[in-house]
């Protein structure tokens, strides 16, 4: 059996020049998992 989650979340906003462009998005969705990883109920998949 399989569970698929599809959800909307903020991408985040790009940091300003002073904070360093190219260092990624800030305040958006971030994954905490890897492909093939074994997980348990309640473990964080990611967070905003």
């Amino acid at each position: 059996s399989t569970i698929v989650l599809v959800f909307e979340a903020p991408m985040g906003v790009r940091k300003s020049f002073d904070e360093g462009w190219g260092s990624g998005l800030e305040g958006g969705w971030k994954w905490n998992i890897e492909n093939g990883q074994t997980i348990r109920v309640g473990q964080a998949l990611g967070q905003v």
Partner: protein
Amino acid sequence: AAKAWRDTKIEWRPIPIGLGIVFLGLVQLYRSQRDAERHRMEESDGEIPPPRQRIRPSGPWQVQVMSTLPLKALSRLWGRFNELDLPGPLRIPGFKLYAWIFGANLEEMAEPDLRTYPNLASFFYRELKPGARPIDQDPNAIVSPSDGKVLSFGMIERGEVEQVKGMTYSLEALLGGASPSREALESHGIESAGSEANGRSMAMDEEFARVNGISYTLPHLLSGSRDRPKKKAAMDASTSSQETTEAKVKADLALGDGHPWYAPKTSHNALYYCVIYLAPGDYHRFHSPISWVVESRRHFAGELYSVSPYLQRTLPGLFVLNERVVLLGRWRWGFFSYIPVGATNVGSVKLNFDAELRTNSLTTDTEADKAAAEAAKRGEPYTGFAEATYYKASHALRGHPLQRGEEMGGFQLG
């Protein structure tokens, strides 16, 4: 031949158990197929409705062979077989053997006495000890809804979800298109997600049910029974519990930076997906990954291919072919959907808050066949799903509220 018949010594030996089980299985399959045909005849007054056009999947020979098998009938047979009670002395060694083969952890079961599980179906749907699965405390996190393995995850681009190893399918095929009911709501200026819930009225509920031919509302959903008024005490307790849940969900949704839970979508938002595979030895109940409100569910009565990682790599669009329950709703950041996908061995998806849902059911298949035939008569495409709404579950939230970590249901054998 006569001499051989007279002189040959006849020696009787028992049939091997495996062969016996296969033979009994084939007999049972034949009987279930015959009953299914009779049931269809009765439903249609002697006229057999044409079955839904089955989509023949492309793929290697293993997939082609699998597509010829009556997978749903096999799944139902498997379910019935596993509901047979095991003799007491066989339970402990039998379940220990199963746990050893599939890596199930017997230490964390709520009921550790293996003799109390009458059959494999009840063992498979076992509960865990309280506290065995601590829920992550970060209020901004989405937590895993089940035990299992992460097969793929990422951002949805161009409306396509990646299966595994580059196979993709469209989000619309997975979730279904916009239903007449949703269009009807939106034509009245009411958005289906991310909108202010309190603006919707009871009258709109009735209209919702009338406009959509295949949708229906579930008036006594929370009590799990149509005769809710007869059970006043249970109703009062349920209502009180429901109010507490609503308050908690509202509090959770309002946490953080002050954005209301119905914050409108912005261009800074994106759609993400995650696929989790549950192996046969895993705990098979699933939980809510966040605090959210389920607005509706769509039941796609498809096929029941295996969803093992091998087949997910091999069979393109597997999730679009398989029977699945799509729960649609909203959370703090907008749209949220939760899709349990059935498989050959676990064809039954159960939702604790939806007593009406019947998956891997002969009746459902027959109804889907009839709906497909009626749609064909009208010259319309068959949407492929039956939809139910939960708007009456909570008038304030316009849906069924779920808390993070709350048990939602599970997968059952067959």
